[in-house]
């Protein structure tokens, strides 16, 4: 095989090689991001001006740590209240709120179906991520409402997230719980 000798020929060939590798990675690597998924849905992006918390403004219900604490006994054994951790598996297994399901926002097709029925039956679906400026809980809530048909009225965002939960010294579970 003759390699291009001119700089422009090499530049074109190199670009082609990288594009092919990137496409192959996206198609064949299971941990790669799905090319067709909108990871930053418009409904949240339209209100992306930051509020006082540093998060994008949104119109979901919010819930605080004390209220979630009251729900903790309800999380096991019934679907009255469902708590969702929107972070990655690595973060979830390191420490999460006891009784929470994990839905990695970047792999919805894998994580949502096992929890979908529970979320549709629940009176309270509470979503959290890391806290601080983490936007994943808001984007996940948006996806759950507009792509998966979860009732918006039952959705609550815990904006303080895992950081606030830890700062308050509240109980933490590790590993894969449910």
């Amino acid at each position: 095989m003759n390699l291009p000798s001119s700089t422009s020929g090499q530049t074109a060939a190199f670009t082609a090689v990288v594009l092919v590798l990137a496409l192959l990675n996206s198609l064949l690597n299971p941990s790669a991001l799905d090319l067709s998924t909108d990871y930053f849905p418009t409904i949240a992006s339209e209100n992306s001006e930051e509020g006082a918390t540093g998060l994008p403004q949104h119109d979901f219900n919010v819930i605080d740590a004390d209220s979630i604490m009251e729900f903790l006994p309800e999380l096991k054994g019934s679907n009255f209240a469902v708590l969702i951790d929107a972070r990655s598996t690595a973060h979830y297994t390191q420490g999460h709120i006891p009784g929470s399901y994990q839905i990695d926002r970047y792999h919805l097709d894998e994580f949502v179906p096992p929890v979908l029925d529970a979320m549709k039956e629940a009176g309270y679906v509470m979503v959290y991520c890391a806290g601080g400026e983490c936007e994943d809980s808001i984007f996940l809530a948006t996806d759950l409402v507009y792509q998966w048909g979860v009732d918006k009225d039952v959705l609550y965002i815990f904006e303080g997230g895992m950081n606030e939960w830890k700062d308050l010294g509240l109980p933490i579970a590790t590993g894969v719980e449910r």
Partner: protein
Amino acid sequence: MRSRLPIMIRFLMGAILITYGIEKLSDPVSFLKSIHEYDILPARPTWVLNLAPSGIPLLEITAGLCLITGFLRRGAAVIMSSFLVLFTAAILWRTFGIMDETGQAFTQVEFDCGCGAGVVVIWEKIMFNTILVLGTLHAGFRAPDS
């Protein structure tokens, strides 16, 4: 005796690029968030933004391998250095935005630039990228084949 420095620069640049590429490829979600923060690539069509977290690291890894092996070395140097210049300009753009918002001096600005090294001091990152651009061009065009 010919200096070994040009060969060492080739290998060093290649190793740095491969390391950064692997770092980004191992956590595509964090890298996607970083890219989204720059607000440069359009969110729609989705594949443009979503291809970047695999495309950019593979660009770095492939360029690093090309610089080390000599395969398509000049083409790799052109694309990689062009990308680094554009990326550095984007970092500067975001830095000026942060300076406007916070009133911080240029030397005080720190953020996670999505470079694979977490939160960095920006003026140091820009200096490093400048050296990386010059080193990559040297490795592509001036260093001997072996």
